[in-house]
């Protein structure tokens, strides 16, 4: 069922719906089973020019909004969580470049190239040795006559082996403190990845996210001009939490869809007798509506101040975006679990059309990507001084 979430470019949403249903869904179980990259769906998204959809039209992109991205991620998330996550993570990187670097000659050219080639960008923000704090780096940019080199021990780089470019965080220079970070674009021919671990996980198996040693050399203009602190608070964090929550909404929607189909099939078997679990369905549908409302509200919240850097740096905005992530990442597990109770053994079976195993395994990943305890800790600290709810 298509999710209509305030989208303004229905063409894009229809293409996402088509790719999700016709291309991603048929191989979603195989992608999950084999922990392989969803090449079919990503090729289709590239062919349909969906990878450059957030690039402004002046650079040849689709010029879509955050609301559109949210709706597309929610749609893809219904069919293949890995496809939706890869798509979402790519768009987060694009959003960072669009907002924080389009005035640089190099990045203006790169955005046009990106729109033309529909390249896929991965992210290397986490690092071994910083205890999960992405606002802290060990590795550093080392300048040498107009170019720089970088070596980073990344515990995960999602779809790193399939990406055309990587955006990586690093300290600004060798004597900079861990929190004084920049974001650098590394193109395929400028980096090498040496695999340091595997990716055999409970869920999101198709994101192919092993650890790597990343080494790169690129020219100085590949470093985004804005400090990463600003990029993080104005774009990376809010956009991440919005597109992730949107795709989790897609997972929850798919689970409720299966529960609804199951109850309907039961009702048809014995007309006049309401299936036992139908009350539970009513309950889970209400949870889904709440989740969808929160995603939409957060999109509106962000879009209403997205051109005001000062407002985006406010504590109360950070707390609200963190809460979006905290609530949606746990609600998706609750909703899929409820759907499992409704479908019973049919949901538990791996070979039934009501099967919910993959969705439940994927849902459990939501609380771990930027661990919820870390986010609660950040909110707890901010609430020592912030008073505005």
């Amino acid at each position, binding site marked *: 069922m298509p999710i209509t979430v305030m989208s303004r470019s229905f063409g894009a949403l229809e293409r996402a719906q088509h790719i999700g249903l016709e291309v991603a869904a048929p191989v979603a179980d195989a992608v999950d089973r084999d922990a392989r990259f969803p090449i079919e769906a990503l090729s289709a998204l590239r062919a349909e020019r969906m990878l450059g959809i957030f690039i402004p039209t002046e650079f040849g992109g689709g010029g879509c909004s955050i609301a559109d991205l949210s709706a597309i991620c929610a749609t893809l998330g219904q069919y293949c969580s890995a496809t939706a996550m890869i798509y979402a993570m790519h768009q987060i990187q694009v959003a960072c470049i669009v907002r924080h670097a389009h005035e640089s000659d190099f990045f203006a050219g790169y955005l046009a190239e990106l729109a033309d080639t529909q390249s896929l960008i991965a992210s290397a923000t986490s690092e071994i040795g910083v205890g999960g704090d992405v606002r802290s780096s060990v590795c550093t940019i080392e300048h040498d006559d107009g170019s720089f080199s970088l070596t980073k021990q990344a515990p995960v780089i999602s779809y790193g082996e399939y990406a055309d470019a990587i955006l990586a965080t690093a300290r*600004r220079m060798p004597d*900079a403190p861990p929190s004084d970070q920049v974001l650098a674009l590394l193109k395929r021919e400028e980096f090498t990845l040496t695999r340091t671990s595997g990716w055999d996980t409970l869920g999101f198996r198709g994101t192919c996210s092993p650890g790597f040693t990343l080494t790169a050399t690129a020219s100085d203009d590949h470093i985004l001009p804005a400090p990463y602190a600003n990029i993080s608070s104005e774009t990376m964090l809010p956009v991440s939490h919005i597109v992730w929550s949107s795709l989790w909404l897609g997972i929850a929607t798919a689970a409720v869809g299966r529960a609804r189909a199951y109850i309907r099939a039961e009702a048809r078997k014995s007309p006049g007798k309401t299936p036992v679990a139908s009350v539970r369905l009513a309950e889970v549908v209400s949870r889904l509506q709440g989740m969808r409302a929160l995603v939409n509200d957060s999109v509106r919240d962000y879009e209403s101040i997205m051109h005001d850097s000062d407002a985006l740096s*406010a504590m109360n905005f950070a707390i609200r975006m963190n809460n979006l992530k905290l609530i949606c990442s746990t609600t998706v597990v609750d909703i899929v679990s409820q759907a499992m109770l409704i479908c019973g053994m049919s949901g538990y079976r791996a070979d039934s059309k009501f099967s919910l195993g993959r969705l439940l395994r994927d849902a459990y990943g939501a609380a771990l990507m930027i661990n919820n305890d870390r986010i609660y800790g950040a909110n707890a600290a901010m609430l020592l*001084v912030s008073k505005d709810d």
Partner: protein
Amino acid sequence: MVEKIRDTLRQYARLNRDVSGISEDADLYACGLTSHATVNLMLGLEDAFQVEFPERMLRRRTFETIGNIRESIAELTAGLPAAAS
């Protein structure tokens, strides 16, 4: 007032250099101020100057430089000469 701000920075901001050598318009985030340390710095300043930062001041810019902190505190202590010493 600036000396009191510097004392508070020394106590709570965990910067990577001597606070005495940081000019009033230097970027404190580039000196290693983290968002977590910013919270402690705010609490320290609230205690030192007997003020409470209103929500509109809880933004990155307010704590970006010693000069910005001074302006915010001056605004909050206007009419309270004792606290601004």
